[in-house]
């Protein structure tokens, strides 16, 4: 019992330390802590999946309500005022710690499988440029948007967002146009087979159906 209390205390101290370290810097707060918290929700969703009630599976048609919830909850924590409040007020920060996994990560993880492939592509295609746009806004703002962060931190956060958008955009482009290495090899093999005498004709539609 005493040992368990000690472990719990240790975990608490570690979490508190992580909070202080990650929120000291705007980039760490926005681009490391927030996605990590949402990521916890995504992992949580894989556990929740087997417990999901029937009515929720039915009501979350094509994953739309889940997506709407995640979009609003994540947008809220993108506002400079919420970032400031989270640093200044532990109660608001606690709400952030709860809402990012439970209202962003978990619904997204549960709803993602219900979304049509084109819907998922739509989400990615909207999400990626928006990250870059926010980064651009941070760079363009002549004033500090957060009272608790310096202008140079804001600029670093802006550049980091733009770099993240470019990297995600490139990955998305490769995934959409070329496919990942093993997949492209497969398609290459299909084209090769088509060229063989008597080989099955290869067409894009067949690739799409896969």
């Amino acid at each position, binding site marked *: 019992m005493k040992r368990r209390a000690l472990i719990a205390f240790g975990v608490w101290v570690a979490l508190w330390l992580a909070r202080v370290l990650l929120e000291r810097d705007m980039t760490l707060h926005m681009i490391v802590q927030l996605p990590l918290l949402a990521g916890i929700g995504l992992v949580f969703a894989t556990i929740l999946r087997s417990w999901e009630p029937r009515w929720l599976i039915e*009501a*979350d*048609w094509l994953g739309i*309500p889940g997506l709407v919830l995640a979009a*609003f909850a994540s947008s809220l924590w993108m506002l400079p*005022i*919420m970032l400031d409040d989270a640093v*200044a007020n532990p109660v608001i920060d606690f709400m952030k710690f709860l809402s990012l996994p439970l209202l962003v990560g978990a619904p997204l993880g549960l709803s993602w499988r219900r979304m049509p492939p084109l819907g998922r592509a739509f989400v990615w295609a909207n999400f990626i440029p928006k990250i870059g746009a926010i980064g651009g806004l941070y760079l363009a703002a002549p004033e*500090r948007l957060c009272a608790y*962060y310096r202008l140079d931190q804001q600029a670093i956060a802006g550049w980091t967002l733009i770099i993240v958008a470019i990297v995600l955009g490139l990955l998305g482009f490769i995934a959409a146009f070329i496919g990942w290495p093993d997949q492209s090899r497969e398609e290459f093999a299909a084209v090769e087979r088509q060229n063989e005498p008597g080989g099955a004709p290869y067409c894009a539609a067949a690739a799409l159906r896969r």
Partner: protein
Amino acid sequence: MSRGFLPLLAATLLLGVGAVAWGTEGFRVVTSEGARRLAVERTPAPAPDVALVDQDGNSFSFSGYRGRTVLVDFVYTRCPTLCGVLGDDFHGLLAAMGEKESARRIDLLSISFDPDNDDREALKHYGDRYGATAPRWRIAAPVGSGALAALLKAFGVVVIPDGMGGFVHNSAVYVVDARGRLALVLDPDTPPQLAAAALRMAAP
């Protein structure tokens, strides 16, 4: 479309819009500085009556300004950038207000949030740089450890280290009205605009 979809969608939309409305004070602010200004205008609160000492070594407090409008800014005299701008703004403000009837009811007050370094000499030096003379324009430092914290909290000033031995702080001009209440927060815009806003506040 399946059963329960529309109610669930409506619930998530309501929750989402409600949360964002809550976070932005009804879609009016996206920064904490904006929220702060809105709160000040809505409910003016009394400025803390803590002890201050000015560049001539005289003690005073906000209660001594009753019946007069005070424009307050927060500075530290070692400040290489922003505070100089604020000093210039106040200097220009005095010139822009001129000798109008309402202008005679307006005083300026620059409060140092770095009292450890800003002794009387430093305050005096800063004042001389911008032609500030007490009591029209006091350069002052809070006395006692609790005084500074009370002032920063009441005025909503957030001071963070700039990583180079100095400070970063939100720059604004705070208007304390004739009843001793913080009633308005202004951008340290161009002096004529500041003067116009100040004169409106001081008008009977």
